[in-house]
């Protein structure tokens, strides 16, 4: 789909009153996050492929380092404040889950998950989502809980923590201390994203060049 918010980039607001020091520090550190060497390389490859299919990269925008962020969470074994009684902790859950996904791919398509084409990888992912799995590896990891408590929240949280993902959805991004003025429907503050629409006197892309 064509980008709804051409040339809009929340990072252009970095040095405006919409970003405070703490925000700059947190976002910069996140952008700089690279893949740690936690887990084995084959498991990291499974994770990369999985992330790529669950949250495809935005077109013509800076790639999101979602896999690196998930790996960082796995390395830190950082939980969210709750753990289902039938689930292991974060690191263990991901390790078992990635192994089981790889086994599921071999079972269904005769090759490891990282080597599958996109359609076959999506077929495996649908099996996970529907709880319709065959590999014996799932016996020590409930697939529904892995999907709901780990796979989905960890991956989408990492992706939508990244500025280019905010830009692609026309989100205002960080907003402290300036905030917003125009709250009504169809009103846009000059530092917000303009949406591509037919018949606009000034095209969205031009307005987005000054959205900061």
């Amino acid at each position: 789909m064509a980008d709804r918010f051409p040339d809009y980039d929340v990072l252009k607001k970095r040095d405006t009153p919409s970003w405070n020091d703490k925000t700059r520090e947190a976002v910069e550190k996140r952008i700089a996050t690279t893949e740690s060497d936690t887990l084995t390389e084959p498991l990291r490859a499974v994770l990369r492929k999985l992330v790529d299919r669950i949250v495809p990269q935005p077109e013509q925008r800076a790639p999101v380092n979602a896999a690196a962020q998930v790996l960082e969470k796995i390395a830190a074994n950082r939980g969210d404040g709750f753990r289902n009684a039938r689930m292991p902790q974060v690191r263990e859950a991901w390790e078992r889950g990635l192994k089981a996904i790889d086994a599921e791919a071999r079972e269904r398509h005769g090759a490891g998950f990282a080597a599958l084409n996109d359609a076959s990888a999506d077929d495996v992912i649908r099996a996970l989502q529907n709880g319709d799995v065959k590999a014996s590896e799932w016996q020590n990891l409930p697939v529904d809980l892995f999907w709901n408590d780990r796979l989905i929240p960890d991956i989408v949280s990492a992706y939508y923590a990244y500025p280019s993902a905010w830009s692609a959805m026309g989100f205002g991004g960080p907003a402290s201390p300036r905030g917003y003025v125009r709250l009504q429907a169809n009103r846009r503050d000059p530092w917000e994203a303009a949406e591509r629409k037919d018949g606009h006197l000034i095209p969205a892309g031009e307005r987005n060049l000054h959205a900061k």
Partner: protein
Amino acid sequence: MPSEFQAEPRAINGRAPDVFTPDGWVPMRGHADDKEVDFLIVGTGAGGGTLACKLAEAGFSVVAMDAGPYWRPLQDFASDETEQQKLYWTDERIVDGDNPITMGANNSGKSVGGSTVHFAMVSLRMRPEHFATRTKLGYGVDWPICWEEMWKYYDEVEKTLKIAGPVRYPWGPKRGRYPMRAHPMNAAAEYLARGAEALGIDWTETPIATLSAPHGKAHPCVYRGFCVTGCSTNAKQSVLVSWLPRALKAGAEIRDLSMVGRIETKNGRCTGVHYVREGEWRFQRARHVVVAGYAIETPRLLLNSASDAFPDGLANSSGLVGKNLMVQLNQAAWGQVADEVRSYKGPPSLAISEHWNYADMGKDYFGGWSYMSQGPLPISWAKTLAGGHGLWGQALIDEMARNNHSVGLKMVGEVLPDERNRVTLADETDQYGLRIPRITFSHSENDKAMMNHAVDFMDRSLAATGATERWKEMSDTCHLNGTARMGNDPATSVVDADCRSWDIPNLWVCDGSVFPTVGGVNPSLTIQAVACRTADRIKALAARGEL
């Protein structure tokens, strides 16, 4: 990941952080561990923080401990969902039951000021009949406090927090004007209003704890929309910036990064608490101990304090400590509209209908619910679409790109007390060596009937505004109450109407745990009102020599 956790205590050596000034400090009275303080309060949220202020102002010596850090919002808070996870209680808790509760974010805070630091600021009074549901409506259990008295304390809390609300509130007994005028409604709130008008029910601007005019050192709300990740401008009237500065001025000590692990008792009375600070276990002596850790940590501490004299935990002769855990239903209806709504602007819930809290006809279940307009931030929205709606891949990315046209309505619904929903201790221990809580929860048939009615109604409201591609989110909960219920009978309650334990006269509970029932409103205003009442009762008892 959160970029840093505040690792070193700040409130030490006679000073505490000044929440209104970057790098600023305010003087703080200190109390030695071996000196007996009048009141040792465990937790500084809506219950404990409020009580610390009121008791210090009444002249008692007060030390209030919190496991979390003491933030200065102006410099410590980012406009960023991930970074601000540092406000949440993310220590491990085990969940089970038929409908295990998602913990950690919207229902748990680990900061000085508790979860009010990241609450959505919705400040509602419970319907009068909801304080006596057994007598008036035939379900649940009555509160030992009458609504008229609660109304008086609601007044006090609303004045303190400078609640911005409507001139005329459509439901319940007449109430005075809110201290500040209502905020302008954002587009998401207008969609609630138009739907309610179309269905012929009342709606109003949500009474909300963020400033619509300057107050003290804080500016009015700038509508940045990151409210539930912490307010970086101090417009939000959290306990951190409202009651606690007053508490410090009145001589209370706030001890941050202090995790209480055990209450010590001797001869049937509390003598103080064991707590960890800077990696070291210490013991603070106290004449009275108030547990204010909210509905998970409060029963956990009481149970973890079991001793030979109290083998089932403290205050637990009724066997009810940890039982009757009540979440609130948080289901939603969502849809797409042609307007650019941009619901990320402004506080998330600027319009409300309490119609179904006050209407009893037309229900096939007990209890009430309200519903509010919504403004989810990107990660929260992505988790909703991927979790509740099952989207992933390009379908998820494309739907996220339409977020500026999404509208939603979300309920806060009453869950009835049920002893099977409870907090117990797991065998596993945490970083302090303390047994962690196990939280067991299952929805009742009553819950399911209420959910179905509510999501159908909210869906009709959206449909009436022209929203298309509507869908129903069926699996969310919010708030936690009820695990140390108050009552008139020691056999069926943990504390009395003053929130004093029946079993141990110098042990008190002050948080949402004491709620016998929850109604269909967010609990923070009621928790603060009960805390104000408890403070008044302590003053009265002290004056009569009955403390």
